[in-house]
């Protein structure tokens, strides 16, 4: 079967010594930073992106991917040990995980998180390997109109799935697009919105924007909110890292259910990791024989969301790699990284760069394996790291932010952008506007304009082309439905419920 030859290419690329090392470095760094309070996967990736620019593309991607799920695992670790989720998707893990820790079963909780994540990761990798080629074939028939509609769908679905006001989320997407437009227009060669500054001719790099908005703004909020209080850490019984047979039996079904749910939700453009973990917790509770146990240390309540969020993280690579449409801000940044390396993700990537594509997919599995084998024994170390006082942490983040931004192009302008968007990010968050759509719009914006232009050229100015072509029309219909659904009051309440549960 083709699958095996694909995986073979992948293994030979991923298992080169350097790539294994980069994978390990990524996973280690990701966990290390993910464990730190106040730093989630999105921010971790933003901060470490500049570091990968000097690496060859596959190694860079492998390392970034490793950082991504390493950071998620780090977030789960702090959820379980300190009840301080490092990231939104770990919030659910804290519900039962911390309770388990308080009952002296921290080791079991951590082991559960690792094992169910690994199960999910393995299955998700297979799903990707199976789904990607047919999806790419379909995508090859995509024209400009289909791409436009697909990207619009991605933008709109991400808006509809974000919590809070739909109006504001849409505005944030538009804002992101406006930021992305700054620079020289590719088609006409005209400079747009550059204020005459030559440093802006190439546009505003998304990295300082991401670091500023997700990093600096977060620091300001943390300090203003009185971060730095002591938290009680449950490190009493970390020795029980092996799961008993009965525990293992209990987590298999939830892990599988979580994997299934997570895989589906991860592929949805705009969908995601957060939704996956919340939804699978809800599902598990509904399906359980004894729902009252949830919230009190039910091991299923750790296994399912952990599996779901890992599956979702991996399958969220699919739309980005095969279609060139990122499904969440992290994917948007990965795509940005690819673009910087001169690789345009899309259906052609599989045929033109098979080693890159399959190597990345295989290394995702390798990374998951590393997480289980290496991180569990290191849990004690992670627990100590998590206790780093914030006043040591935040200047370090500022340092990395500055140097990272500067190192992109050796331009002080990039650091200036860092400051600007740090400020803007803070203002927006205080006004209860979602930041993720901004990053999305920033990276997708210029592309969507290009496709609009081409589609209009082909149709000779006729806007109905988007409705005439069936795939495009279908995509647009889904987009409209999802927005309308999200704006309806009844659904809004449910979304709030899901997010507040």
């Amino acid at each position: 079967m083709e699958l095996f030859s694909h995986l073979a290419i992948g293994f030979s690329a991923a298992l080169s010594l350097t790539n294994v090392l980069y994978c390990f470095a990524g996973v280690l760094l990701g966990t290390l930073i993910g464990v730190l309070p106040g730093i989630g996967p999105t921010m971790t990736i933003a901060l470490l992106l500049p570091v990968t620019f000097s690496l060859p593309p596959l190694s860079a991607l492998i390392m970034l991917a490793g950082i991504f799920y390493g950071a998620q695992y780090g977030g789960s670790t702090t959820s379980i040990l300190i009840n301080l989720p490092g990231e939104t998707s770990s919030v659910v893990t804290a519900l039962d995980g911390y309770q388990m820790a308080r009952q002296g079963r921290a080791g079991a909780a951590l082991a559960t998180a690792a094992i169910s994540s690994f199960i999910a990761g393995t299955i998700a990798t297979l799903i990707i390997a199976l789904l990607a080629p047919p999806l790419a074939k379909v995508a090859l028939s995509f024209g400009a109109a289909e791409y436009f509609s697909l990207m619009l769908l991605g933008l709109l679905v991400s808006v509809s799935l974000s919590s809070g006001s739909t109006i504001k989320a849409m505005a944030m997407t538009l804002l992101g697009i406006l930021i992305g437009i700054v620079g020289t227009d590719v088609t006409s060669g005209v400079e747009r919105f550059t204020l005459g500054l030559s440093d802006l001719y190439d546009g505003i790099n998304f990295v300082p924007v991401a670091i500023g908005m997700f990093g600096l703004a977060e620091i300001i909020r943390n300090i203003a909110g009185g971060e730095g209080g002591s938290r009680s850490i449950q490190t009493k019984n970390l020795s029980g890292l092996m799961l008993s047979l009965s525990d293992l039996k209990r987590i298999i079904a939830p892990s599988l259910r979580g994997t299934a749910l997570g895989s589906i939700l991860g592929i949805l453009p705009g969908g995601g990791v957060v939704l996956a973990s919340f939804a699978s917790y809800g599902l598990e509770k509904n399906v359980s024989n004894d729902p009252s146990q949830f919230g009190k240390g039910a091991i299923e309540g750790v296994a399912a969301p952990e599996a779901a969020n890992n599956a979702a993280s991996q399958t969220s690579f699919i739309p980005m790699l095969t279609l060139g449409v990122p499904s969440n801000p992290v994917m948007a940044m990965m795509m940005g990284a690819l673009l910087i390396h001169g690789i345009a993700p899309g259906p052609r990537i599989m045929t033109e760069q098979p080693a890159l594509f399959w190597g990345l997919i295989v290394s995702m599995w390798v990374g998951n394996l590393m997480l289980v084998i290496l991180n569990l024994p290191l849990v004690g170390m992670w627990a100590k790291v998590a206790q780093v006082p914030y006043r040591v942490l935040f200047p370090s983040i500022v340092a990395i932010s500055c140097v990272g931004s500067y190192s992109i192009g050796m331009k002080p302008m990039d650091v200036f952008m860092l400051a600007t968007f740090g400020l803007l990010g803070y203002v927006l968050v205080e006004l209860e506007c979602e930041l993720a759509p901004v990053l999305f719009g920033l990276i997708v914006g210029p592309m969507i304009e290009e496709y609009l232009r081409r589609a209009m050229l082909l149709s000779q100015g006729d806007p109905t082309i988007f409705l005439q072509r069936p795939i495009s029309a279908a995509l647009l219909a889904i987009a409209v439905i999802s927005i309308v659904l999200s704006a309806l009051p009844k659904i809004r309440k449910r979304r709030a419920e899901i997010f507040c549960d």
Partner: protein
Amino acid sequence: MATPVGIRNKDCTAGILFIGIALCYLILGRDLEVGTSTDMGPGFFPLIVVSLLAILGVIAIVNSLRERAGGLPGIPWRPLLVIIGAPLIFATLIEYFGLALALGVAVWFSSLAELPWRPWKSLLLSAFAVFFCWLVFALAFGVPIPLFKLPG
């Protein structure tokens, strides 16, 4: 410490912000050719986006009039100015002085964000930060930032 700011409530302020940004872009891009839909000029797409943003801003303001006024958070001046100021300091200094001075000063400054300020400990921390960044970015990843440099 914090000063309440903004208008009426968060949504209203956000709406005004949106309209403000839309206007800025409108003014900055007033010379851009819009073109026709067949032959889209550089101004075509921005015009669409800007108009949509302005409309959303109006909707946000209208929506906010239905809600109660108030509920605006205050501005935490200290962390805000310090955390935003630090990269600005770095950006100003880096081209003239090397990493050590530019980053050192910036990071040391940033430690002012949280009270009580511990000047000597922060100085030590910034020294570590400088060393660490130099190690990772300059040495390990070959970014050509000199550690020490003098203007001229």
